[in-house]
């Protein structure tokens, strides 16, 4: 009984997912699937509430030490539930209500969320793996959901093949870590390495960690493991992209945080530089790649690579502040990216027909509200102050600078300067006069779910930018749980943080 409370949000999501499936089966073909969406929304809300409620629970593990509920996992639970909620709303607006299989899509989103949540709270790599697979497989399916177009299945197959390829690496990594330590539990791994110094660390662990980083790097689309991202995002249905560019990534980052900070902090001398390079390459490749994109979705795909890079910067700080910054960044990125994809979904029409930058010309003249919101999200993505995007970046780089990562900070912020170019191109296109020859983007009146979704994400983005105090506090608490346990397991590593050769 007590244990099941530790997975209460997951249970709720599963129940609602099954409800959606059952209800779907009872509905006649061609009927509007909207009620299913609202059921799913209820489920997401329930999960959100349940996750928030979990703060009441004493931090600890359940199910024989397989899941751990602490400030860290709850933080990500809430985030994932929120993303799913907003994405569901977006989907309700952007997909034709009578679309076949819409009910399955809603159910998949809920089930996928279960996997992601489990990833964040799992302290057993097996459960991490299963959660990862749940989240991955559900997103593979979602990517291929719009079967009428040629792009969507291609997107799905690319995602699927490359994703499985990366999963194999991740799994190999777990196997090697298991080989090195004889366990797949985070705490036990940390304990196994606790006594070891650089000299007697089993070398397998490095290879294992590298494999894990490769696998998770793929999932978070960190360059150079990002190659799938643009193609998949371009082809996948927009509402789904909003979800899969944020929630699974957040979960994967949470896993990476757990593994690096909780399981393997003692190896920081090896993994910090690797992540340093991943961060730099991600930021640079992502932003440069986005520069020439004419398709907004593809551009946002490159941008998500860059944002993964910014988030990785926080890792290199190797401090509680860094973890808090990474967590916070995940929230801000989610808020603005889900928001922007909500509008992309709506503006693109049911079939994502209009996704070129030029299609967005003059959106402000047809739908000022949407254009304004989109501009706001883009501005946040650029990192203009008083938006979440800025504060996230600011916090990340503050953490990095605290750790003495001056070059990383400079590279990162110059990158954010480059990034301004392509975001702004879209933002300004919104306000430019529409080209006369261009097909006019017939924007439907935004529906209630879209308004809700945009409102939620925009409000979140704004709040994160202006009064981030609460979220910051939660992020810091989350970071505390990771690093405190890390200090318990590897006290000398924490002490070593000051004499890193990187300084």
């Amino acid at each position: 009984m007590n244990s099941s409370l530790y997975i209460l949000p997951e249970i709720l999501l599963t129940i609602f997912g099954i409800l959606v499936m059952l209800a779907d089966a009872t509905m006649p073909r061609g009927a509007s699937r909207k009620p299913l969406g609202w059921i799913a929304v209820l489920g997401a809300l329930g999960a959100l509430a349940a996750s928030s409620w979990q703060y009441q629970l004493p931090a600890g593990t359940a199910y024989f030490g397989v899941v751990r509920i602490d400030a860290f996992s709850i933080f990500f639970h809430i985030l994932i539930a929120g993303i799913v909620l907003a994405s569901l709303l977006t989907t309700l607006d952007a997909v034709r209500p009578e679309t076949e299989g819409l009910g399955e899509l809603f159910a998949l989103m809920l089930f996928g969320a279960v996997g992601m949540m489990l990833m964040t709270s799992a302290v057993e790599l097996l459960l991490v793996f299963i959660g990862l697979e749940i989240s991955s497989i559900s997103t593979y399916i979602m990517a291929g959901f719009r079967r009428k177009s040629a792009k969507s299945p291609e997107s799905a197959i690319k995602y699927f093949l490359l994703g499985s390829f990366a999963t194999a690496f991740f799994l190999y990594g777990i196997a090697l870590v298991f080989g090195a330590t004889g366990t797949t539990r985070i705490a036990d791994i940390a304990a196994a390495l606790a006594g070891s110094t650089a000299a007697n660390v089993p070398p397998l662990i490095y290879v294992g960690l590298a494999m894990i980083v490769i696998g998770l790097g793929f999932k978070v689309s960190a360059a150079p493991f990002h190659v799938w991202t643009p193609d998949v995002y371009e082809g996948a249905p927009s509402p789904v992209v909003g979800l899969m560019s944020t929630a699974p990534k957040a979960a994967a980052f949470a896993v990476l945080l757990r593994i690096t900070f909780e399981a393997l902090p003692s190896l920081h001398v090896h993994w910090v530089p690797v992540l340093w390079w991943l961060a730099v390459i991600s930021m640079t490749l992502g932003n440069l790649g986005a520069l020439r994109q004419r398709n907004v979705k593809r551009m946002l795909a490159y941008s998500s690579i860059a944002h993964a890079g910014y988030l990785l910067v926080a890792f290199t700080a190797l401090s509680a502040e860094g973890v808090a910054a990474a967590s916070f960044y995940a929230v801000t990125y989610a808020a603005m990216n889900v928001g922007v994809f909500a509008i992309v979904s709506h503006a693109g029409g049911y079939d994502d027909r209009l996704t070129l930058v030029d299609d967005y010309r003059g959106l402000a003249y047809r739908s000022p509200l949407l254009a304004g919101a989109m501009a706001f999200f883009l501005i946040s993505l650029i990192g203009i102050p008083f938006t979440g995007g800025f504060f996230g970046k600011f916090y990340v780089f503050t953490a990095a600078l605290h750790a003495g990562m001056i070059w990383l900070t400079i590279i990162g912020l110059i990158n954010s300067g480059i990034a301004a170019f392509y975001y702004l191109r879209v933002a300004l296109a919104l306000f430019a006069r529409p080209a006369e020859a261009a097909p006019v983007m017939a924007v439907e009146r935004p529906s209630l779910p879209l308004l809700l979704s945009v409102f939620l994400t925009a409000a979140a983005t704004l709040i994160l930018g202006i009064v981030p105090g609460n979220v910051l506090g939660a992020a810091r608490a989350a970071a505390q749980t990771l690093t405190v346990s890390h200090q318990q397991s590897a006290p000398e590593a924490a002490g070593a943080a000051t004499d890193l050769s990187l300084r």
Partner: protein
Amino acid sequence: MTTDLHLWLIPLVPFAGFLVNGLLGRKAPKPVVTAVALIGALIPMLQVSALVLKFDSLSKPYIQHVGTWIQAGSFHADFAFQLDQLTLVMLCVVTGVGFLIHLYSVGYMAEEDGYWRFFAYMNLFLFFMLTLVLAENFLLMFVGWEGVGLASYLLIGFYYTRDSAANAGKKAFIVNRIGDFGFLLAMFLLIAHFGTLSFNDIFSQIALHPAWQGGFLTAVALFLVLGATGKSAQIPLYVWLPDAMEGPTPVSALIHAATMVTAGVYMIARTHAIFDRSPFALGVVAIIGVATAFFAATIGMVQTDIKRVLAYSTVSQLGYMFLGCGVAAYSAGIFHLVTHAFFKALLFLAAGSVIHALSGQQDMRAMGGLRKKIPVTFWTMTAAVLAISGFPPLAGFVSKDEILYQAFIAPNGGKILWAVGLLTAGLTSFYMFRLWYMTFFGESRSAAAQEGEAAAVHARHDSKLVLEAEPHTHPVHESPWVMLWPLIILAILSVVGGWMGWPAGLGGSNWFSHFLAPAVQSVHLPYEQATVALNTGALANGIVNTPNAAPSGDKQIELILALISTLVALAGWFAAHLMYCARPELPERIAASLHAGYATLKNKYWVDEIYGALIVAPVLFMARWILGALIDRGVIDGGTLAVGYTAQGFGALVARIQSGNIRSYAGWLTLFAALALAAMYFGWAARFIPR
């Protein structure tokens, strides 16, 4: 000194006139505009008259602080006015001549569309000119200095629809700005050394330090000279003045003859304390003056536009004033300034009357025989011509002779200066009588105009009115009395004006010089020593002279010099008579035989063209092509673009990774997986991190 003179009111009244006419004049009826303008000129004149009456009772200089203008750190500049002899003389000239010309303009400009505008500008000019002469510090003087330039700009460009007028106005302003640049630098130097710009503070500092000779004072003086050459149309910045004749004739009379252009002379006299310490600068002033005088006179000999002749004559006469100042005979310079104001204003006004009579004709070749038709104009003009040519006992004779005499007795090349000045006097006489003959004698060459064949164009030929209407002409006629009275008054002044400075050498007392002496005499008189010290040097060491106190033994010299110059003036007259009255075919023959020389003079030594080629064209070329095109468009815009394209190029490279092929992606992933593995295992990554 207890009395409050309200000096600040003197400039402020015309300013009020400017405001009223400028803001409301467009809609106001013409008599109201006239009244406002005339009151704006009259009240200052009355105030000055009152000052004249009170003057002896004042302790001098009388200084009045009205308020702080600029206060920054320890530096401050005030709205402060001062009154001394020099100021008083200038005030009289400015308000007196100014009022007369205002009066004249009422008739002259009666037909004009921009009547209100004209008078607003005229009042504005008076405001700035009075500020200039009343200022107690350099900065306030600079206000007037720039302000009169502004008024000049506006009035030259009065017929703004005419490109030549607009160009002339612009040219005047810009050339003046070059001079102002010098003035500014002089002020910067003064601030750097004295921390103040107050005349009295600076001059008393200088007085306290007899050891200060040359050095930075020379620099200050030379920069001031640069300013003065701009405002007073001296070499090398005289080029704007002839073009300034595009303005209405009263403007030429007031601004470009009587008052504004003399501001440079006034400024040198005002700052003589600085010049006195810099023989070199004085030398420069003298040389510039005499060179300009000669140079402009030669050009004046061959001009055919009546106003241009007068313009070059003005430049030439200003050269005399510079010469006077340059030999430290400041009072002589100022004296010539005063007399010149009378007769040159008269010349211009009379010329205006002629032009008026001929419905706008300015070309002397189309004049002639006007003696009978416009007698008042003729006789007043005759007085002026005689005065400027230097016939005793007219005003011009007295003042010019004073300068020539002072030059003659100056050491170190003073004789050369005198000789050139004398030659110039002859030339002056020649071209003035040439003008006289061509305008008033001989056959009337303007017959065509009278027959209405449109050869002559009305003075306002380009003004807006005429644009729509046919150019209208009317018979030659005398001007209305409102124009003639100022002529008559000025003619009288031209005749008798010189008597107040009748030289001692000719039996006078040189009252003017003595009156002015307190204002322009050096506080310390290091002249003797300086002269001795400087005698060793050549021209570079300057030509200095004790200003006012001519050695009594030189009375004979003065007399002889006066005779010589009178003879020279007569010679000039004779030559003019010969060429333009007796044998009218002679000028063409001479021109033909001296072809090159004639062309040079006719084209004003091509100075405008040379400036155009050496300064204007290169500056424009640099602005347009080197800076505008090459640097701004090329390097700066191009650099921005290049950075942009480079980034985009990298972007294209990054996108090249995205071939769309799954196997390629897998290949990419594999390669980097291997690299990441190796990096992690061997800890390579750390090595490539910049720190």
